């Protein structure tokens, strides 16, 4: 016990006092040094990748100009050669929208192909400059690539959701389902939830929470839809079965070549 007390007393003995300002200056010095070093690193990185950035913009600009020139040349050449008329004569030009004749389509494709080429060349130059110059942990650029991928996923998911929602809405209305809008909205949100989960997963946000929440939401929507459609479609199914049965009976009862008289009551669309 005495030994312990002796040690404690020894530890609590006052140290020789140092001036407070000296300690403060050390902290500021360290901070300043850290900031300087960080600034130096970032500036060095910027200076190192500046040629890459310039190369990127130059490649895009040059390729865009080349694309523009090629597009104009192609458009004039194909118009002079009456390419659209030849194609219409040969294949039946039934599917071309007016603002997208074959000539315009080819010219536009050429232009955007050149722009894409410029982007690829520029990105490649930038990537090379970044890889050789960077001394910092290079986590920002790859994450930006992920963000771009996530945005593309989001756009695609939204488009698919809208397309499916419209398809189901029109189909269900034509089948005279009273819950057509509900069904359409359900499918739309199903796809949107799936898209959101994929986007978050792609961005590596949320981890297991996203998977869990997605599973619960997805399952919930599917269960709701199944219950709603199952309960609401009883009449439809019974009507369908009845009409099928009636058609079969009529076919078996009526002679195959029975002429239709003017007094036929049925409504025939064709």
């Amino acid at each position: 016990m005495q030994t312990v007390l002796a040690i404690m007393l020894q530890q609590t003995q006052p140290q020789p006092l140092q001036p407070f300002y000296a300690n403060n200056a050390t902290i500021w010095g360290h901070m300043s040094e850290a900031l300087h070093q960080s600034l130096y690193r970032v500036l060095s990185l910027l200076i190192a990748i500046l040629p890459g950035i310039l190369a990127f913009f130059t490649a895009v600009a040059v390729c865009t100009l080349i694309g523009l020139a090629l597009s104009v040349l192609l458009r004039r050449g194909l118009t002079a050669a009456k390419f659209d008329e030849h194609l219409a004569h040969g294949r039946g030009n039934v599917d071309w929208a007016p603002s997208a004749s074959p000539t315009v389509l080819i010219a536009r494709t050429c232009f955007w192909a050149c722009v894409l080429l410029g982007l690829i060349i520029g990105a490649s130059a930038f990537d090379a400059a970044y890889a050789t110059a960077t001394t910092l942990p290079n986590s920002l650029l790859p994450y930006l690539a992920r963000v771009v991928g996530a945005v593309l996923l989001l756009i695609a998911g939204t488009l698919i959701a809208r397309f499916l929602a419209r398809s189901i809405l029109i189909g269900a209305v034509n089948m005279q389902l009273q819950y057509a809008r509900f069904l359409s909205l359900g499918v739309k949100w199903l796809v949107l939830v799936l898209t959101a989960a994929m986007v978050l997963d792609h961005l590596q946000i949320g981890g297991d929470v996203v998977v869990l929440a997605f599973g619960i939401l997805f399952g919930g929507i599917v269960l709701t839809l199944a219950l709603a459609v199952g309960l609401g479609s009883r009449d439809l199914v019974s009507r369908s079965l009845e009409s099928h049965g009636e058609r079969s009976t009529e076919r078996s009862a009526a002679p195959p070549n029975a002429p239709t008289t003017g007094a036929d009551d049925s409504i025939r669309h064709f």
Partner: protein
Amino acid sequence: MATVNPISDITPASAPPGAGLLVLLAAMPPEQLESVLAHLVASFPEEDLLVATPDENAADSYPDLRIVPAPATKSSWELTAADFVNAYHLAGKNEARAILMLGPESSSLGSPALRDLANAVITSSTDLAIPCYDLPPHAALVNSAILYPLSRALFASRARFPMAIDLGLSLRMAERLASAAQRFTPPSQGEVFLWPINEAAVAGYAIDEFDVGPRVLPQPEDPNLNTIFPMVTGSLFADIDAKAAFWQRPRLLPPARYSTPPAPSTEAARDIAPMIEAFRLAYDNLQEIWRLVLPPKSLLGLKRLSLANAAAFHMPESLWARIVFDFLLAYRLRTINRGHLLGALIPLYLAWVASHINITASGTSPARHIEAVAAAFEADKPYLVSRWRWPDRFNP
């Protein structure tokens, strides 16, 4: 209707060359075939007649007739591109001077009808002889609502059945149809329809229409309107799109064939409630889609229609014409997906059918109402032409 056997694989006909009339028959049961052949024999001298049928046993069963095999097709209810290609190739092989195409269930056509259709293309300068069927009042309603009015307004033809399945064709008409059909004949194209009246009008060929009396019209195997309606209207819309340079010019409609007033309808009122309900359900749900296609004035007309009770349910002819023209424009501009577009037209068509039945039940003859609809289409054609050329112009 995809061709099962290409025409080149057909065994050479045993018939001597130089037949006057080639009759191309669709696949049909033996008793129907017998009836059609009896009508043909009664109408034409046997030496001028060459019959082509997919029935392999026909040549043995009827040795007195010159019968050659025709490629078997999946023909069920309508003539398709493959039929026209087959007809032209067979006519060329057998040196026929004219072609008579008879669709399924053609045994219900009488001998005079066959004679009229064939003689028109053999003896006169007619290139396309088209029948006018005497159908029950509420049959072929898609034809009455869309095909006939559009064909009449845009291609200046009074032919009542643009989708007729019995046709008389001159050789040059058959050649034109075959060349138009060639681009659709690969099997991947599936069922593709041709529009002979449109082709004849664009080529400047003579079209003649003949009353052929009652006929049993074959119905599609799948009677689902939601499947067939987009297929038929989409095919016509695509053809109109392809021939825009032709129909935009104003043309005079030929005079009507007869002017006897049609008898008033004695039809009993039918239950149109399901069709009206279908329209109202669509009005509640499809407005966001219709709004992309139709101008506010048409939407207002539809709103009034949705509020009308069954007895007063009447879609004005001008409104229907404007709706079809706006859908045609949206089809051309791809305002929305074309499948969605044509699907969204179905409830509006059902509303027209309900209105048509209401009008005919009130004493107006169906023929008179259909003529009124066609006249409305003609009157509104300048709107279509204007918006076709300047789609972005203000449209209240």
